[in-house]
């Protein structure tokens, strides 16, 4: 029913719209069939060729010819095992193209040029420039991510969670509700872009897949914490606008700046404050584990942004464009970070109870100060001179009650 209503409103006609059920399934199946019929002669020719050979009882074995292959040298592991960095040292495998021209699944380093004419292209691979996705630390972060995966079901001592006083429990559950909301977009954003990145940038796709997994675990752990403490509480309209701004970012680098460098940086500030915010050792363990994951995402964001800036032929214009984008991004993040659903629970938890919320707001001012200065430090590390143009207030945008 919902799909019919949405179809009546019209749609963009994109595959994404198809997947979201905005168009009648028969209609999109018609298009799918037509596309493959249009290419019929190309793949049917391959089928006939193979079928004839099989019927003759002959083998091809052309794949054993190593003339055009980078065959021979064997990858050797380093101290921590066989890393992407180790295999990328072999000739022919480690060079990432500045602009991807293989828009299918033929692996980088395989014999593929001679088959180019026979292969399809994936229209959704649209992020073709290495500089839009690469970061100098992406392979190291991928290794780190794999080494530090944890399980929100078993690695948190849930059975040791004791009830808090009602105000602290509600504050904890509200904070977890807000963090669940945030973690959803933190998973959707890399997922949205990952499938648009060609396979030649496989290291980046590998890292983004760990980010998606991390965020799935985060929304899981915060949802579970809320439900273990009484339930989810209120969603946050102000945060929703910030999250939408992240998901709708016009380019991968811009969105990475807004998500990884700014928004996840804010979340990282909260997690780093977890020792003071958490009121149980269970909650501390949740924050401790989440902050390690979040640090990787922030780390990728900073160096991806730096890489992009450093490889722009018109650096001044590129920076100016990012300033325009940051003007919007900072304002929506400010909207999110002034929401009572986020600020007040943290203040209550920092203060130690609803009666001490004013004292807690003093702590929140310090959290704000941390966040702003950490954010500007990240911008400077990336080579983005944001400090004089930052629209976020350097001091917390609220007063402590007299």
């Amino acid at each position: 029913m919902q799909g019919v209503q949405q179809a009546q409103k019209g749609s963009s006609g994109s595959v994404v719209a198809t997947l979201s059920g905005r168009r009648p399934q028969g209609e999109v199946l018609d298009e799918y069939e037509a596309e493959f019929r249009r290419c019929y002669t190309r793949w049917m020719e391959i089928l006939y060729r193979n079928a004839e050979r099989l019927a003759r009882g002959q083998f091809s074995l052309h794949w054993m010819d190593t003339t055009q292959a980078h065959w021979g040298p064997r990858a050797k592991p380093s101290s921590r095992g066989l890393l992407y960095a180790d295999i990328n040292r072999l000739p022919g495998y480690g060079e990432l193209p500045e602009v991807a021209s293989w828009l299918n699944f033929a692996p980088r380093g395989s014999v593929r040029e001679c088959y180019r004419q026979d292969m399809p292209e994936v229209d959704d691979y649209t992020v073709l420039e290495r500089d839009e996705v690469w970061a100098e630390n992406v392979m190291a972060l991928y290794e780190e991510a794999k080494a530090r995966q944890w399980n929100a079901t078993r690695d948190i001592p849930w059975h040791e969670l004791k009830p808090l006083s009602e105000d602290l429990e509600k504050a904890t559950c509200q904070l977890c509700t807000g963090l669940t909301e945030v973690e959803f977009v933190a998973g959707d954003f890399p997922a949205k872009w990952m499938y648009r990145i060609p396979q030649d940038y496989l290291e980046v796709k590998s890292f983004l897949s760990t980010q998606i997994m991390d965020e799935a675990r985060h929304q899981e752990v915060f949802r579970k914490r809320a439900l273990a403490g009484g339930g989810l509480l209120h969603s946050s309209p102000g945060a929703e606008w910030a999250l939408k701004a992240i998901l709708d970012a016009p380019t991968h680098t811009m969105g990475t700046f807004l998500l990884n460098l700014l928004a996840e940086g804010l979340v990282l500030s909260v997690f780093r404050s977890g020792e003071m915010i958490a009121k149980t050792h269970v909650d501390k363990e949740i924050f401790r584990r989440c902050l390690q994951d979040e640090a990787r995402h922030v780390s990728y964001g900073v160096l991806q942004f730096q890489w992009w800036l450093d490889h722009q032929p018109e650096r001044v214009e590129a920076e100016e464009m990012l300033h325009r984008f940051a003007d919007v991004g900072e304002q929506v993040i400010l909207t999110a970070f002034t929401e009572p659903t986020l600020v007040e629970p943290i203040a209550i938890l920092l203060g130690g109870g609803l009666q001490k919320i004013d004292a807690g707001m003093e702590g929140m001012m310090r959290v704000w100060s941390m966040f702003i200065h950490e954010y500007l430090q990240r911008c400077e590390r990336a080579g983005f001179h944001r400090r004089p143009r930052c629209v976020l207030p350097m001091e917390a945008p609220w007063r402590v009650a007299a």
Partner: protein
Amino acid sequence: MSRHGHFYIDETCIGCGACEHACPGKVDAIFPVTGDFLGRFAIKLEECIDCGFCVPLCPVSSIHDARREGFVQASGGYLRIKELQAWAERDSHRAT
């Protein structure tokens, strides 16, 4: 006679761990500090070979070469956690 490396990580480390996987070959000099809530990393000087591969991978420039920079006083936003910690300690807001 053992030879010590000269690289160290200051306290502004955010714990992303990118540096941990930068050590080349059989070297494994960087490790997470046990029990540190902030998940920071440190370098075993006796195992560091001074290659410096870890330095450009750090997103907050917290890795230094003591030969060139000496022992720097860490600065920047990531030190401000100390202000919150001091405030919480002073007013006994921390969870017990």
